[in-house]
């Protein structure tokens, strides 16, 4: 393992919530896109719900990121060179790529949000609409996962010792987005088949997340022994509660209670995952 002496960047709760909400926004858009592109007319309400969730979650992201800056009014320095006023883009810096991804994805999320409200007329009907949604989904997936890559592209212990964080955050984001849609769909008394669809998808995402969790821990090797401290073990227990327990619950029990509980656990687990990854390298 590479040994460095980097100071912690003091990325804390604003960043935790940004990672969570960015994942939710991007994941929900991607799910909505699949339902819109591959589904039939009966999937339309769920696709609409996904786009209606994506934008509000996304809207909080730049606010959180700006508040986290030492100089919030200079947020635009992320995109524009303050000296030359030319756009600044650096493909090797996930922060630069991510800042642009946030801007570009917000265009897609905004237009699809308007479409879900029925305000876009015929703009997104036909082939252009399909292409637009597909590209938006790619941006959303990027936003949901790049935050893990951003942590890895540093010289911090733990973060830079693994390559699995991008995939792990993405899988978790998809799971969180699915659980959020399932919860909101319940409020609207959706048909059972929608519920089942969401659950089948979440099962895939949770299994993917568990595999990546294992890869993450294995790739860390002895560095991962830091997680044996009680405070991190407690958070890992929440992460497991947000993955293994929903799987078990939905296999064993049917009905409203277990379904809602499974969704809530996924949300808590997704948040706990980001908390433990972000704080354990810095404290």
């Amino acid at each position: 393992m590479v040994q460095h002496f980097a100071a912690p960047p003091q990325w804390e709760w604003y960043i935790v919530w940004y990672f969570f909400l960015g994942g939710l926004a991007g994941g929900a858009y991607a799910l909505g896109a699949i339902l819109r592109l591959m589904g039939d007319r009966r999937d339309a309400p769920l696709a609409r719900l996904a786009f209606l969730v994506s934008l509000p979650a996304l809207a909080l992201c730049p606010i959180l990121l700006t508040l986290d800056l030492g100089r919030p009014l200079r947020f635009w320095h992320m995109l524009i060179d303050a000296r030359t006023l030319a756009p600044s883009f650096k493909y090797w810096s996930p922060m630069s790529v991510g800042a642009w991804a946030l801007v570009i994805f917000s265009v897609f999320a905004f237009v699809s949000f308007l479409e879900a409200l029925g305000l876009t007329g015929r703009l997104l009907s036909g082939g252009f609409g399909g292409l637009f949604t597909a590209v938006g989904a790619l941006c959303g997936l990027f936003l949901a996962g790049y935050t893990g890559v951003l942590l890895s592209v540093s010289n911090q212990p733990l973060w830079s010792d693994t390559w699995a964080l991008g995939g792990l955050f993405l899988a978790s984001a998809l799971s969180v987005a699915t659980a959020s849609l399932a919860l909101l769909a319940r409020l609207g008394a959706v048909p059972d088949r929608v519920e089942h669809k969401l659950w089948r998808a979440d099962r895939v995402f949770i299994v993917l997340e568990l595999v990546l969790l294992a890869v993450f821990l294995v790739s860390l090797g002895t560095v991962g022994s830091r997680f044996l401290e009680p405070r991190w073990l407690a958070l890992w227990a929440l992460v497991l509660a947000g993955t293994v327990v929903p799987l078990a619950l939905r296999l064993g029990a049917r009905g409203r209670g277990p379904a809602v509980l499974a969704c809530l656990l996924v949300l808590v687990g997704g948040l706990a995952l980001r908390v433990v990854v972000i704080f354990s390298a810095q404290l």
Partner: protein
Amino acid sequence: MARTVGFFTDTTLCIGCKACEVACKEWNQLPGHAPRFGDGYDNTGQLDDQNWRHVQFHERTTTNAIIRTEFDTVYIQPEVCNGCRDCIAACPYHVIGFDETTGLARKCTFCYDRLQANLTPACAKACPTESIKFGDLGTMRDVAALRLNQLRGQGMSEARLYGDKEYGGLHALFLLTDKPEAYGLPKTEDAVLPSRNNVRGYLGMLVTAVLGMVGAVFAFRDRGGSE
């Protein structure tokens, strides 16, 4: 480029008087921190006089705040930095810190204003034992090599130079008498850049995205339409 300057810090001459630290804070008008036990071998606390000059590093900053000056030193422009702290996460030497008062990232400026006035940086000027030397980088290399030979000749076999090879040369040479890790400096072979993790990180994400989307397509497919 006016000239390429550098430091040579000979830790065997340091007596821990902290004159350099006081001079630095006085000249640069920085607040002192409360005294702490174990402030470090060279009493500048965090090796403030270290200078990671690797070109990819300052190009990494999203805001373009970190530049190379006409003295070939690395400098954070306080009017450009927005305090995102990405550079702090990247710096393997703990050289960059976050200034809570200004909300900006801060590192040693090599006393940029003094250099422009043809003056020696405050720490080197104040050092009573000439443990911290400053001058043209080539001269510093020669002085360091001479001193290393002298110490080795006296039987100090653990003496070594640090900072000439790492990251393409730090412009801050250190004469150490133990392995670099003992001084909070990464081993030479560990002097690698954050961008090493870009490709594999994105690849892991890409594979996950493909698997997740394929899985979602299958999950959302209707099975006979009545499930």
